[in-house]
């Protein structure tokens, strides 16, 4: 076997040091195929070589956790003999290059991670970040990503029920597409990728292998420079119809006893799936590449092993179950081929045309992947900004309209109306609230699901931003009455080889860990996306958190809509009027600075547990968490959802911050609820040591804020609903 020239090594994204390590492991130079396999397996995307040391610090256990990180997705016990299985994963690089297919295959990939474990997917969410609306590519990217997510999710018939969207010039060269899937499986029938049984058949099923997506994982592990679009051939093409068939066929076969282990072919395709199964089982594999179903003639072993063609699965079957499995997959018109077997050699041996074309030891390659403790610099602390140092608006109503109509806060209806959010007929709370609520089919229980991150907080103070993202997810689940169970994290950052970026990463992970510990909200799955930078400019650090909670009784939930006139508005949690890094500061005062609001995890927990108790007792059916834009925006959203006004009077309190800070401050751990009479709730709050104060009354067709004229709800609606459709070039229907 001849040694590859140095430029080929570099083109495979391997450092000189890593290449030396390959020579040590093999005791010889790798051939081209073997080099390609090392390249994808040791890519940042597959190996987590820069992030692993930090990820190990996250809390991953709780009595209800069944599978933490390390499997295709995390699994938690939700009672009734069932488990919720979920994960969030990025498809950032491909979506920037080719938004429709990039986003579509992102959805396909995360769905496979979930149903591979035996779960029927019941909900999709997505956390999206785009560049400046005025950037020439933003409109095209937004249109393509939304169409791609819808095109895939709608066709497979899994409702897309929620998510979040931000716009920031920091994403001009690198958008973020983070897709989350939640599924439900019988708790005692969860499937993993750990192979066992020497001699057992390795079976390939799903779509045929083509030449698409070769080196996708390596591409996703490098920065973009000029001409990123030229990498389009590394983007895969999705086929949601085949995915739908694959879901049904896999679930049908999983109901039998045929499967020993199963793994989807995602990043690094056949290479990583076969390695992972063998490595987890401490075994070897022999693959006969002549048997791999191929889309084109004349594909080389290199192409087959590195292809990232979508909608493919690898399984280890019990002896004698091949015909049963073949029957199921043929019923669904899917390819099915026995392509190899498990061995006890601990090696991966690849054969084609009767020759050995690759021979690699599995453990050193999969387990001894490089792991770096990269140098990092802490992000300099942002100065706190006193509420009085931020000017009050000339007109409170105008400021509110401006916030409600801003790209980051305006209605996302244009997006979610392109997603089928009701298929499966279990969507109880549709998009637009604090968390999506999806019924557990055939029961009166439900899962609450949310995704959250405030990138401007992560940028100003990574540690705090990481904690805040977790706290907000926990709060959003609480606000619908759910008991928060666990999270999946999707960590999007720039180039980890730069200490400033690594500092952001370390800070966010530490903050996430701290909040997850304090809230008993462990991390059960996740994904890291690094090298999100173009021409040396990194994205804002974006630690997206996907949270899942359990609602025991659908009769005891809350949503954000005001429901009846004459009810008392009660604000729960302490308001100091924190305006640093707030949306008010950015959108109204045109300043991007300051420290984000502090996160007090003890208060977060105390206030949240109190609110959940109110909802569980049936005392409260309208509840909204306070976040971007503070009290005024939360109240406006509640008025819009219920098509009902309210009159607000600030409490008489000498410590009250300036009015605009009271209205627009983004202090954490707060909720706004309505109750027929406030006194019992205020009394219960006093007993629980939770700050609570009555701030007004519902009613009428306008919102009356202190220091301003009444604003009609219809006027707020126009401000809220206009920006996005207009930006996307739609004229309102007559």
């Amino acid at each position: 076997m001849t040694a590859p020239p140095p430029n080929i090594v570099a083109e495979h994204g391997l450092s000189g040091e890593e290449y030396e390590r390959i020579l040590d492991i093999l005791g010889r130079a790798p051939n081209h195929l073997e080099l390609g396999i090392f390249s994808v397996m040791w890519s940042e995307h597959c190996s987590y070589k820069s992030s692993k040391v930090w990820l190990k610090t996250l809390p991953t256990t709780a009595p209800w956790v069944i599978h933490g990180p390390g499997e295709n997705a995390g699994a938690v016990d939700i009672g009734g003999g069932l488990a919720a299985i979920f994960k969030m994963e990025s498809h950032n690089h491909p979506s920037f290059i080719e938004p429709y297919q990039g986003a579509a295959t992102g959805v396909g990939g995360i769905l496979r991670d979930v149903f591979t474990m035996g779960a029927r997917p019941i909900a999709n969410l997505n956390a999206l970040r785009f560049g400046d609306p005025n950037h020439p590519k933003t409109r095209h990217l937004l249109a393509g990503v939304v169409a791609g997510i819808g095109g895939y999710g709608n066709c497979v018939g899994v409702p897309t029920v929620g998510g979040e969207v931000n716009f920031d010039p920091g994403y001009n060269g690198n958008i973020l597409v983070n897709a989350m899937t939640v599924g439900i499986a019988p708790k005692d029938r969860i499937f993993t990728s750990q192979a066992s049984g020497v001699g057992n058949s390795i079976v390939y099923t799903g779509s045929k292998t083509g030449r698409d997506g070769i080196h996708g994982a390596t591409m996703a592990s490098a920065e973009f420079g000029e001409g990123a679009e030229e990498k389009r051939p590394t983007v895969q093409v999705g086929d949601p119809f085949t995915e739908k068939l694959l879901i049904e066929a896999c679930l049908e076969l999983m109901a039998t006893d045929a499967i020993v282990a199963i793994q989807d072919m995602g990043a690094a395709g056949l290479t990583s799936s076969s390695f992972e199964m063998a490595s987890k089982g401490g075994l070897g594999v022999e693959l006969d590449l002549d048997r791999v179903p191929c889309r084109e003639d004349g594909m080389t072993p290199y192409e087959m092993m590195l292809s990232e063609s979508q909608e493919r699965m690898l399984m280890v079957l019990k002896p004698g179950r091949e015909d049963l499995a073949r029957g199921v997959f043929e019923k669904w018109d899917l390819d099915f081929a026995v392509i190899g077997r498990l061995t006890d050699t601990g090696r991966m041996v690849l054969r084609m045309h009767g020759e050995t074309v690759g021979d690699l030891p599995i453990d050193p390659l999969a387990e001894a992947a490089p792991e770096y403790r990269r140098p990092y610099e802490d992000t300099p602390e942002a100065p706190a900004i006193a509420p009085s140092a931020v000017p009050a608006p000339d007109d409170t109503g105008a400021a509110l309209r401006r916030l409600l109509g801003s790209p980051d806060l305006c209605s996302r209806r244009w997006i979610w109306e392109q997603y089928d959010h009701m298929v499966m007929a279990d969507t109880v709370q549709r998009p637009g609230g604090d968390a999506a609520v999806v019924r557990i089919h055939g029961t009166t229980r439900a899962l609450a699901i949310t995704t959250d991150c405030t990138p401007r907080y992560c940028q100003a103070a990574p540690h705090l931003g990481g904690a805040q993202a977790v706290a907000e997810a926990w709060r959003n689940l609480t606000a619908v009455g759910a008991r928060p169970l666990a999270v999946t994290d999707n960590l999007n950052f720039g180039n980890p080889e730069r200490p400033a970026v690594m500092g952001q990463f370390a800070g966010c992970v530490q903050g996430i860990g701290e909040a997850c510990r304090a809230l008993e909200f462990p991390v059960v799955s996740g994904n890291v996306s690094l090298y999100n930078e173009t021409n040396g400019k990194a994205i804002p650090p974006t630690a997206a958190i996907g949270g899942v909670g359990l609602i025991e009784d659908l009769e005891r939930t809350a949503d954000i809509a005001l429901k009846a006139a004459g009810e008392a508005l009660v604000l729960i949690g302490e308001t100091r009027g924190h305006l640093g890094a707030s949306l008010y500061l950015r959108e109204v005062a045109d300043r991007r600075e300051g420290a984000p609001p502090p996160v007090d995890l003890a208060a977060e927990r105390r206030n949240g547990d109190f609110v959940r108790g109110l909802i569980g007792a049936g005392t409260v059916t309208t509840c909204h968490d306070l976040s971007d834009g503070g009290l005024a925006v939360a109240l406006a959203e509640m008025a819009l959802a219920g098509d009902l006004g309210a009159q607000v009077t600030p409490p008489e309190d000498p410590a009250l911050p300036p009015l605009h800070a009271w209205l627009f401050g983004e202090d954490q751990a707060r909720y706004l609820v309505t109750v027929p009479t406030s006194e019992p709730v205020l009394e219960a709050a006093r007993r629980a040591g939770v700050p609570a104060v009555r701030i007004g009354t519902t009613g009428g067709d306008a919102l009356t804020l202190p220091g301003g004229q009444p604003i009609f709800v219809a006027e707020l609606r126009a401000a809220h609903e206009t920006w996005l459709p207009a930006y996307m070039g739609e004229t309102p229907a007559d």
Partner: protein
Amino acid sequence: MKAAVIVFPGSNCDRDVQVALAQAMARHAQKGGGGGTPTMVWHKDSDFEAVDLIVLPGGFSYGDYLRCGAMAAQSPVMKEVMRRAGKGVPVLGICNGFQILTEAGLLPGALVRNANLKFVCRDVTLRIETSQSLFTARYEAGAKIRVPVAHHDGNYIAADEDFERMEERGQIAFRYCAPDGTLTTAANPNGSARNVAGVFNETKTVLGLMPHPERLAEDALGGTDGRPLFDGLVEALS
């Protein structure tokens, strides 16, 4: 009543309509009628048991990679569905099922891409155009109901002479309307001609509609306006 839900590869509202019908059958059983659950029939089956109602569910049969419903209209099971429809067995096609029925020639007209070229999923208001049918007997003519749509190709078209005949014979089942019942462009989610949301065949034994009544047939899901369609069918066919 016995009902069959036809499952094509890519159907994805098959379970939803099965549940809505089973719930209607359970309600009927509480009043002394027979209960039961619709059976699922696989698209490769060229024969299936005798039933009182055949349902073609929503979804993306065969991926809708060709014209929506065109592939499904040619599948083995559809020959049997067409034969039975010809004998008067009631057939209900929802969303993709409606598209299949027009492709199979069981209903007039065609469904083309939405006027704004985008998938649309939202609640719409429908006006009941007639209560003189198996499917709409439990509604009052002129009543307004709220049910969701979720489709990319729901823009109904038909030749003018077809429309005239259909209007004359009362073959228009539902139209998209404003909450006050007027037929406006804003209330029409997909650009359908004459705001048509659902149509019957000449004998009113076959109904196709783009909206999903099965998705708002339970209080827990936010509404029950779709329920009378299923209750009416169960009552009439039991």
